């Protein structure tokens, strides 16, 4: 009997899962007993962390993209289509163009997208900028290259958002770049956060506080934008405060594909067991990465490590064993500190986050990792 393993999504989680499954189940795949297929609505694999460097001209949008076919083992079938519904009782998927397809085991890795329409400052009348896709990052590059004086506001408008460190990193990087260009005296920088401290992860807040003070970066906490008046360039908050800006970089709220709610896999985020990654609502369905409600950050490292757990569990099931591997919530994020220094933060379900000392080496490690990522996607390392 052939086991059909289907993976929805060709991003970090989906690609690593497919390649590792192929390696792990080599015998079964070459014997024709297991078929692995990826369904992705994008024939290109996008490594989003690269977009972070695009506004600064340090990476190009094409550095973030490669054809999925370059990265996915040739023995994994690629189907370029969008999944429109998951029938978890009949164990099949509806596709936008190609009818439906069955599965025995399903891995959902559809990620998260910014909800720009519902984020103040964005949408048709907004003039807020962000760096979460190629076009937006290029538009921000245009603005930054002409920004010689005024008030730059980095506002964390919505949570949850992907990559917890990005807002802090962007602020530190802005400070360091403007200093290098000798423009810092003419540019004010303000960072705002919706909670009473600088970051939801305590140690990151503690790390940022003295560094912001040293660098003359202004901060406003408990700052929840309600509306943004782009005509007058003012943010109005729920708390009743106003903040004027010349350039607004906003961190929008993220949301999963409506496919999850429509298929009964969760109210908004896909609800899974935080250790086994199995769906709370359906059998033989697993969730990894940004799409899940896992009680940790929405980061590439989480998608990567969770993929390892799902691969072990599915391989055990296919071979008729009891799955044993569990996900412990491993999370690692780099933290750019500006001025060519970097730090990193790591934690899991049991261990509190620790921010390491910053150094030039960690900064390079981040650069090196962003290149090495393409090997990670192939299921190496």
């Amino acid at each position: 009997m052939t086991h059909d393993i289907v993976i929805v999504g060709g991003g970090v989680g989906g690609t690593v899962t497919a390649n590792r499954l192929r390696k792990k189940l080599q015998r079964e795949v070459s014997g024709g007993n297991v078929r692995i297929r990826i369904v992705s609505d994008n024939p290109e694999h996008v490594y989003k962390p690269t977009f972070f460097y695009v506004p600064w001209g340090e990476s190009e949008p094409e550095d973030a993209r490669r054809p999925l076919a370059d990265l996915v083992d040739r023995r994994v079938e690629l189907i370029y289509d969008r999944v429109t519904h998951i029938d978890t009782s009949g164990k099949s998927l509806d596709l936008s163009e190609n009818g439906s397809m069955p599965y025995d085991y399903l891995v959902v890795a559809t990620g998260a997208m910014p909800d720009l329409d519902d984020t103040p400052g964005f949408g048709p009348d907004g003039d807020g900028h962000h760096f979460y896709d190629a076009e937006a990052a290029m538009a921000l590059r245009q603005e930054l290259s002409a920004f010689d004086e005024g008030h730059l506001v980095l506002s964390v408008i919505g949570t949850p958002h992907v990559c917890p460190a990005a807002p802090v990193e962007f602020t530190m990087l802005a400070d360091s770049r403007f200093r290098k260009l000798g423009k810092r005296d003419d540019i004010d920088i303000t960072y705002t956060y919706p909670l009473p401290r600088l970051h939801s992860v305590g140690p990151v807040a503690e790390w940022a506080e003295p560094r912001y003070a040293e660098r003359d970066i202004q901060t406003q906490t408990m700052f929840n934008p309600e509306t943004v008046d782009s005509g007058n360039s003012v943010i109005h908050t729920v708390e009743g405060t106003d903040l004027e800006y010349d350039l607004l970089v906003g961190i929008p709220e993220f949301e999963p594909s409506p496919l999850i709610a429509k298929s009964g896999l969760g109210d908004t985020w896909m609800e899974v067991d935080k250790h086994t990654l199995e769906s709370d609502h359906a059998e033989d369905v697993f969730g990894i990465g940004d799409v899940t409600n896992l009680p940790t950050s929405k980061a590439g490292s989480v998608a990567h490590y969770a993929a390892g757990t799902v691969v072990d569990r599915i391989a055990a099931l296919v071979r008729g064993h009891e799955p044993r591997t569990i996900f412990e919530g491993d999370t690692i994020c780099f933290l750019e500190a500006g001025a060519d220094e970097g730090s990193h933060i790591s934690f899991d379900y049991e261990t509190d986050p620790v921010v390491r000392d910053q150094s030039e080496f960690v900064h390079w490690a981040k650069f090196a990792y962003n290149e090495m990522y393409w090997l990670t996607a192939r299921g190496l390392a």
Partner: protein
Amino acid sequence: MSEEPIDPDSEAVQHALETLVELEETGTLDDLADAANLVSLASEAVDDDMVRSTMRAMVHAGELFDTAAGEPEALRNLEVMTAALSETAPDPATAPDQVGMIGMMRKMNDPKTKRGMGFLVQLLHELGDQLEQRAHRYDFETEIETERP
């Protein structure tokens, strides 16, 4: 980093000192100092672009190795091909004699050449098969409705 003052009598400080003394006595400390100088030199000399371009080259090599590791049969065939290449001629100056149409026909009676032909013909077939499969995998034209469900 903790901002608290360090207690010289604390267990951690004593332990750290013992480690240091041990490193000094074994001569390891000198080696470490040398290594630190190297690291410091590296940190002066290296910049973002060097890290990026070196890594990029290494990653491409890594991908090639990964592909090879997943295709042990291909490696075996590659060894056959490299051995055959060596045996064919030591260098271009001492290449085998020219062969025309007639010579070619005559060569076709040679059982070893026939064997090689069989391999090459099969290789062409598989090449066609792979091209067909890959063309489909690199087909970016498939139109998907732009609206998300």
